[in-house]
């Protein structure tokens, strides 16, 4: 099953490599990974999406917790949460496709953020599934480039991941 694991860690050089190294060292899988400093500049927040059965996910969270630079770990998928991913996608936009891309982007609440006579670049925010659906709905033929941020997540309600 797919899990979103959120990690609060020291904003120190080498901290990210410890996390990434742990995943490859222990044969855990990484689907996507995002990391950036938080409002407290001594801390970074890392979100990793991974796939594994309960035993594997338990090991992932335990092993992450063992890293000295890791302050807190939470498996967001255990509770109610919101996940978002940002995608920028560049299309070859000629003739009929120009209108088609615009229409589909509107349906998905995407925005066109760059235009040339032959291209559109669309920005879309949503769950990974929604981004996948957008790509599928326009087919591969006109896509020139896709860039995705990887998943970020936060729990619903008053629960927070903080020191």
């Amino acid at each position, binding site marked *: 099953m797919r899990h979103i694991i959120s990690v609060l860690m020291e904003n120190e050089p080498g901290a990210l490599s410890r996390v990434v*190294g742990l995943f490859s060292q222990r044969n855990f899988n990484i689907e996507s990974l995002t990391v950036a400093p938080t409002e407290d500049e001594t801390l970074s927040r890392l979100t990793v999406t991974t796939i594994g059965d309960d035993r594997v996910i338990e090991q992932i969270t335990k092993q992450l917790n063992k890293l*000295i630079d890791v302050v807190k770990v939470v498996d967001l998928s255990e509770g109610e949460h919101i996940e978002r991913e940002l995608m920028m996608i560049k299309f070859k936009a000629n003739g009929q496709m120009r209108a088609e891309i615009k229409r589909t982007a509107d349906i998905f609440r995407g925005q066109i953020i760059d235009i040339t006579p032959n291209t559109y670049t669309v920005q879309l925010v949503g769950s990974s599934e929604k981004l996948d659906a957008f790509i599928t709905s326009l087919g591969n033929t006109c896509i020139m480039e896709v860039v995705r941020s990887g998943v970020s997540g936060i729990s619903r309600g008053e629960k927070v991941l903080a020191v």
Partner: protein
Amino acid sequence: MELLSGAEMVVRALRDEGVKYIYGYPGGALLHVYDALFQQNEVEHVLVRHEQAATHMADAYARATGKAGVALVTSGPGATNAVTGIATAYMDSIPMVVITGQVMSFLIGEDAFQETDMLGISRPIVKHNFSVTRAEDIPSIIKKAFYIAQTGRPGPVVIDIPKDMTAPTERFPYEYPKSVKLRSYSPVTKGHSGQIRKAVDMLLAAKRPMIYTGGGVIMGDASRELIELAHLLNYPVTNTLMGLGGFPGTDGQFVGMLGMHGSYEANMAMHHSDLILAVGARFDDRVTNGVDKFCPTARIVHIDIDPASISKTIQADVPIVGPAKVVLDDMIQLVKESKKRPDAEAIAAWWKQIDEWRARHGGRYRTDDSEMMKPQQVIEMLCKVTEGDAYVCSDVGQHQMFAAQYYKYNKPNRWINSGGLGTMGFGLPAAMGVKMNFPNEEVVCVTGEGSIQMNIQELSTCKQYDIPVKIICLNNQSLGMVRQWQDMNYESRHSQSYMNSLPDFVKLVESYGHVGIKVTKYSELESAMREAFAMKDRLVFMDIMVDPFEHVYPMQVPRGSMRDMWLSKTERT
């Protein structure tokens, strides 16, 4: 406040940490530190002949005392030579602080002379590592390193220090921190009381209980508590390879080591048990054999300081995260307070069964069909001559298994071997590290002609520092464990497992200034061994010719259950 250079702070911090010996090898990146070492005499440096040996010496000191050992190696090749020793300590959860030199900070990343990314290389084999980016951080980093290495589940910590951080020209006010607090690291100090109560209830209700303990009891200093609990309950105890000595080897309740080369009775009892109390052990693949067939009727209580060790390979029914010493102590109190008693009838029947297993196969080996000395005989003689009281530092291979099976360890911290990583070449430097710190104790290196040659250069260090260890070399002229597997799984095709052109070990050790004794007949063994141990202030190398065709038994059948064992070349369970 005193002003010290980075190099002086390194040395002073080690002194303030209570370090007596450090083991190392100088090089360009460490010259400032070595100069600071030269100008004081509180921290003594031991010059090894290869950096791997420095790490093993520090590691063995830690295994014998529970305190972190310290190694000091230069950048580049010095650091990479230390990698095997760091990995060895990591796999066995041994506290160690390894200080590596690094090129000047402004050269890092430029492929400078003797530069290597030691932080990157060591990352998967350390508990943590540090890079010094400001010289004034040196005292606090060293404090943190010792704290991390020695608390929780212990492990090695690397501190990488660029040369310019130790420059004698820059001085800083020095103060060694009294304590350290890390917001992201707080090891547990106590087990969950509800879980402990549940575990004790299960323990008292068990009909076929087994207490299975590992290195956590040794490094967690929980041997006394283990003995008390086991005696209170009269339950059988088995130890892992890392756990030997945690429970006295001559105690009637001890059923021997378990696992791949565990005793018949220990493996049979594990397989048939209804409750396993695992303490400071990690259900390693060399213990469990096939995990899907592991102890089918047993419920499992697992005590470990490291939550990640619990339910990693075998699901625990009652997980207890905490230090073995504290948790066992809580259990002892609860057992004493409880109105329930163990089911005497069931336990008596269980012991009867175990005694039957013991009588059937306990610790046998054949001596009748060959003129050759058996390696087992040598270990039994060693146990007799040293009265079971020596520090036994083993290398890796068949001799290691024989030393585990046939020497009876009655005290913790006396059986010192590379269990997790299985590092050949560990034995001699390990023995050196122990002997330097326990000069009045008998310290033995049990090795083979293969392993000893992996760090034989240290005979020179032994001469320089007068380290009179006794080396028992079980010479079977082959890489015995490899050969055994080839016999059993590859129709005796002995690919590269025969050691040709061996040196004359007696002459070799004599050239280093030590004493060598060669033994070829069992009838001469005892007198030769007594003669060797009578030479208290000399290193004696005993080259003992043993049967090259001997196998280690029992041996579990791969991917079988605990009870699936070969008991000899022809018998199987």
